[in-house]
């Protein structure tokens, strides 16, 4: 196996230490070593967005990052979005209410990208939403309901209500 690199990183507010092979990818570390299977593997080439997580507060494709390079990084995955196991986050609630998913495989990536979008722009236009979601592919919905869900989530977050 060759050398191992020691890293310390924070995943969903919990500190983790790991000894990793240099080529271990963040998405494989999250899924196989931490069991966080909400982050999905789609294209593995950085094109589909299913594996999107927040890295130091910004969206990143976890299939395009080596864990070895993430010493000291803060990672947030879809498992850390809902306020409790019984409740959905307003973004997740909006996706549910607006029928913004069918098979749901791409949804975790969309939720993470929407988190970043609404944090920087609480009331985005349809164009801004579509532009922000450029890198998240959905093969079921045709995107119209996803755009509606993001709009509804923005409204709910601004008003502090449920979507």
């Amino acid at each position, binding site marked *: 196996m060759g050398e191992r690199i020691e890293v310390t990183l924070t995943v969903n507010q919990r500190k983790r230490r790991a000894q990793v092979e240099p*080529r271990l990818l963040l998405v494989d570390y999250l899924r196989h070593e931490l069991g966080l299977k909400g982050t999905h593997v789609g294209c593995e080439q*950085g094109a589909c967005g299913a594996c999107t997580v927040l890295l130091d507060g910004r969206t990143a494709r976890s299939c*395009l*990052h080596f864990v*070895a390079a993430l010493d000291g990084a803060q990672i947030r995955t879809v498992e850390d979005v809902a306020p409790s196991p019984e409740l959905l986050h307003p973004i997740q609630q909006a996706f549910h209410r607006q029928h913004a998913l069918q098979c749901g495989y791409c949804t975790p990536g969309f939720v993470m990208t929407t988190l970043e979008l609404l944090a920087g722009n609480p009331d985005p236009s349809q164009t801004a939403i579509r532009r922000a979601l450029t*890198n998240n592919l959905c093969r079921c919905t045709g995107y119209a309901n996803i755009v509606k869900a993001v709009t509804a989530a923005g409204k709910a977050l601004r008003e502090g209500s449920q979507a």
Partner: protein
Amino acid sequence: MYNFAYHRPGSLAEAERKLKAAADGRLLAGGQTLLPTLKQRLAKPSDLIDIGRLAELSFIKADGRSVQIGATTRHATVAASAEVRKAIPALAKLAGGIGDPQVRNMGTIGGSLANSDPAADYPAAVLALGATIHTTERAIAADDFFKGLFETALKPGEIIKSVSFPVPEKAGYMKFAQPASRFCMVGVFVCKAGSGVRVAVTGAGPCAFRQSAMEKALASNFSAAAIESVKVSPAGLNADIHCSAEYRAHLVGVMARRALTEANG
């Protein structure tokens, strides 16, 4: 992906030593091109030297006459920079239109230039603005930097430290993006400065290049109307499933006129 030895140097000097000592070393910065390349086994480096988090390479400085950007500065940082937006708004706009949010969050200016992808955005700005690329060994003028398809003037072991852009009087950038990848099918950056007019094209040839016929036409009249009659030849331009060479030649004219309208707006 083939395995490799991973190094995380604490300084640029250490990174340079590690790169020169490696049998076939590559630098890792944002990794947005390098990782897909490794995954497809299109490259098999012996060592990766990670400069992505080296603080000394990530900065933006502006002094009124020029803007200096450190090599590992992310596209999103350049796009959001108040200094860049004030001094060279067209450059901030270009950075904000690269790829998608995830690429902009991770991709770096140094990585984009060193890769010299024929469809990358930054090379057009670097050429048109007459920027200087500062490396661990020398300063390279933009005109001498891009050599061909994925080929630059960089020598083995040489590392880009920063890029300095002279502040122009006027500048504009417009691209026709491939709808899925957001790479440039054609992008044109126009610039008017004390030193003259420069027009640079990306996406259309093996690497970014200057359009001298347009530069001549614009020297006395920096407006879209001045280049209406300039013919762009499709000879030597890229052709692929997205776009023929003839269509790219047509787009060079359209994008140049729109960039001029923006620069004068």
